[in-house]
């Protein structure tokens, strides 16, 4: 990225030495040290991308492989040659914008068509693997092997030696393959305690005693360790210190898209896929389920199910009311204070002004939590109020709403105060003078001249403040958490759309991320419409100006 650290300063011709360096650096532009910094930075970025690429390939995460591969190519195509100059400056920002800014939006839209949520987290093949893994049972009459953990010459875990006491055969089993070992090169002993065969050494491998496996690097959890069996659907697993060929009783038929339980070979039970779970005819489901496409079901749920439909419009209405009321009260108080302190004869204005903006200087998440304590119904300000004034600040709907708007007024008025103070100064004095000459009173001049002019200059900020408060998750979540909430309803009485989405997605059991994503898409659409209107509105105002 950087090409100019030992570069000549502006307005100075490059010295002979530097010209020489430029030639070495591959042309007129750039110096040797700039070029080196560029190569170092590019190398570091490449290294990170390659490391990520390896991990992604390792986990067969092909989406990530594609993104990282593309990034790697783009990095070198853009920064190595001297072409693509604008891209050299745009690429880093564009990378973060697309991968961590735009992609999540698109992914929200995708997730809204899935049933992603508790019990539907895995992909279908992962879910089938887990389902089959849970039903693994030893194959009838299969060989029971005596097992010995083996380490290689460098001291690392190399697999289990499997000794077949009847057939006098020895295998080395790893999680990927099973190989027969030559018995000539092997030292065996019989353990006195268990009577089982222990492999002292086999070729360059050494056996590890049961007491020493704790310090053996790379030693796996034997309970879940699986070695390939003789047939494809079987595996050798370890139970009770012995290894045995095992097979899942659940057989997946990819073509029919069914899982069949063959434990009882007379009456096999067939499970069919239904909404991301394999379900038998009698309703028994195999867990875990998996993520599957559900089309527009989530949107249908939001707009038609009794659980969501009624709540949706109530939450939407409150969301608008909250945002509008927040803008109105913060602007009203801010403007009032701006006007009040806008008189030169008032003593101590400086102190008033600096103290009155204190709420703006404190982190909002912190003060929201402080207010929550103050409005605690048992231990908060109710303690000092006469009992007739004790209000259920948090358990009754209207007081909880008033609390939110009051606290938001406290958080937001200093900003409006600063804005209004500035805007008041921009109102031309001659207009006001003219009004007074014409006999207008102070109130009338304010209402007819100062206020409309002020509104023109602050309206974009009011629109921005509305947009901010429309999605003011932090305040709602920290102050009321959407409470009060009726049992059986997902949306609390003071939830806004975004905090409702949070509850549906994460703060509920079961979590329903697919459904929450559908709600998010609805919010996106609302915000898009509001932004378009806001754009037009401020444009119109500018024209008026």
């Amino acid at each position: 990225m950087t090409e100019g650290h030992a570069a000549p300063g502006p307005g100075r011709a490059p010295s002979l030495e530097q010209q020489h360096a430029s030639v070495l650096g591959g042309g007129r532009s750039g110096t040797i040290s700039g070029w080196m910094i560029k190569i170092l930075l590019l190398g570091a970025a490449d290294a990170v991308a390659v490391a990520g690429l390896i991990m992604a390939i390792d986990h067969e995460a092909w989406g990530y492989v594609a993104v990282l591969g593309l990034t790697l190519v783009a990095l070198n195509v853009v920064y190595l040659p001297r072409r693509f100059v604008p891209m050299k400056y745009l690429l880093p920002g564009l990378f973060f914008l697309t991968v961590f800014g735009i992609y999540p939006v698109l992914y929200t839209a995708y997730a809204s068509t899935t049933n992603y949520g508790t019990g539907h987290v895995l992909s279908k093949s992962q879910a089938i693997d887990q389902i089959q893994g849970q039903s693994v049972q030893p194959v009838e009459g299969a060989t029971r092997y005596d097992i010995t953990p083996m380490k290689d010459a460098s001291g690392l875990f190399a697999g289990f030696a499997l000794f077949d006491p009847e057939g006098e055969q020895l295998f080395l089993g790893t999680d990927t393959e099973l190989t027969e070992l030559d018995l000539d090169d092997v030292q065996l002993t019989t353990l006195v305690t268990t009577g089982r065969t222990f492999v002292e050494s086999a070729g360059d491998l050494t056996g590890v005693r049961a007491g020493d496996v704790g310090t053996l690097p790379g030693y796996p959890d034997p309970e879940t360790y699986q070695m390939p069996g003789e047939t494809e659907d079987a595996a050798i697993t370890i139970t009770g210190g012995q290894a045995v060929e095992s097979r899942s009783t659940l057989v997946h038929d990819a073509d029919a898209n069914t899982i069949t339980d063959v434990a009882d070979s007379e009456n096999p039970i067939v499970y069919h896929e239904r909404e991301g779970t394999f379900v038998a005819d009698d309703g028994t489901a195999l867990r875990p389920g998996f993520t599957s496409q559900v089309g527009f079901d989530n949107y249908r749920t939001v707009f038609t199910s009794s659980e969501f439909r009624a709540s949706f419009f109530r939450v939407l209405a409150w969301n608008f009311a909250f945002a509008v009321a927040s803008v109105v009260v913060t602007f009203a108080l801010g403007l009032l204070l701006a006007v009040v302190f806008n008189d030169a004869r008032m003593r101590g204005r400086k102190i008033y002004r600096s103290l009155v903006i204190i709420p703006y200087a404190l982190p909002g998440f912190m003060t929201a939590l402080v207010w929550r304590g103050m409005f605690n119904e048992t231990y908060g300000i109710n303690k000092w109020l006469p009992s007739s004034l004790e209000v259920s600040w948090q358990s009754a709907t209207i007081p909880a709403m008033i609390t939110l708007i009051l606290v938001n007024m406290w958080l937001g008025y200093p900003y409006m105060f600063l804005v209004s103070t500035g805007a008041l100064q921009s109102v031309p004095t001659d207009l006001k003078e003219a009004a007074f000459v014409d006999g207008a009173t102070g109130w009338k001049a304010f209402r007819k001249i100062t206020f409309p002019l002020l509104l023109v200059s602050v309206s974009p900020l009011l629109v921005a403040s509305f947009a901010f408060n429309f999605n003011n998750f932090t305040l709602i979540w920290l102050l009321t958490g959407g409470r009060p909430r009726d049992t059986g309803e997902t949306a609390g009485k003071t939830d806004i759309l975004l905090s409702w989405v949070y509850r549906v997605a994460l703060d509920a059991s079961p979590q329903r991320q697919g459904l929450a994503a559908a709600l998010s898409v609805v919010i996106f659409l609302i915000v898009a419409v509001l932004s378009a209107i806001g754009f037009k509105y401020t444009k119109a105002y500018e024209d008026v100006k």
Partner: protein
Amino acid sequence: MSTDDATYEEGIYSVGKYPAAGMASLFEPDYKRVGQRRRPFGRWFRETGWRHIVGVLALLFALFPVWFVLLAAFSESASLSSQRLWPESLTLDQFRTVLDEYPFWRWFFNSLAISFVTSASTVLLAASAAFAFSRLRFKGRRGGLLALLLIQMFPAALAFVAIYLMVQRMAIFSTLGPGSMATIVLFYLGGALGANAWLIKGFFDTIPRSLDESAKIDGATHAQIFWRIILPLAMPVLAIIFLLAFIAAQAEFLIASVVLFGQDLSSPSKTVATGLQGLLAGDRYDLRWGPFAAGALLASIPVVLLFQFLQRFIVSGITAGAVKG
């Protein structure tokens, strides 16, 4: 807190006086009256006295929560039930509790680290994009600028469900995934362009082009122009963007809590915001009120200090923004 009064006063008193009094002074600034030192009380009250009443009421409203949390932090009791309105004894017990029983310093430095990396990267990313938009000509330049304007209307937080799902999948990379601070930073940087690039571009546009042109004639490369001419000249605006991004990252709650979802209070990667919120989670949060208050005070220190430093810029910036429309 000292406010630079010059920003407010400027322009008001430069114009001659006009005979507004009484009700007129309600909404209009009055002008210094030469030779009028004393007013009768009634008139004084009508003109300025009532302003003090409003001012004092406003101060009570503004400062009550601050007073409330100060008392809780220096109280001898950790419980909200023994919260007072007037101090009886001052102790540091609550500070001791929050520092000894909870990994508060950890949260504190996590937040500082996340904010620092985020804001430094934000400035670099936004400034280099702004340089391309301001100084270079390429296909899609206008379209790109417009796209940035549109994108910044949709805050990343709206897509937090997808962010949560992405974070779960990112666990395959050793340092990323749920509970990883680096992951928080990555998603913060998703919003680094947008408004910031616009702001910086606006500033770059005011730097005379003749500067880069003469440098170009002298053989400077585009990189030299960017690093050695434009960036040093734009230091003031870059500093502001850095500090504003820093404060925003300190206060960010939603994305941090999505990435840290399911991490308990002992997790090594909690931020101050999620840590303090965790302290007050549950029904009987009133029992941990004192430690929370002490932590909240400590957590406010960096932001308050930065605000002090930034105040003159914020005040005049907002004011300018308002006037400009």
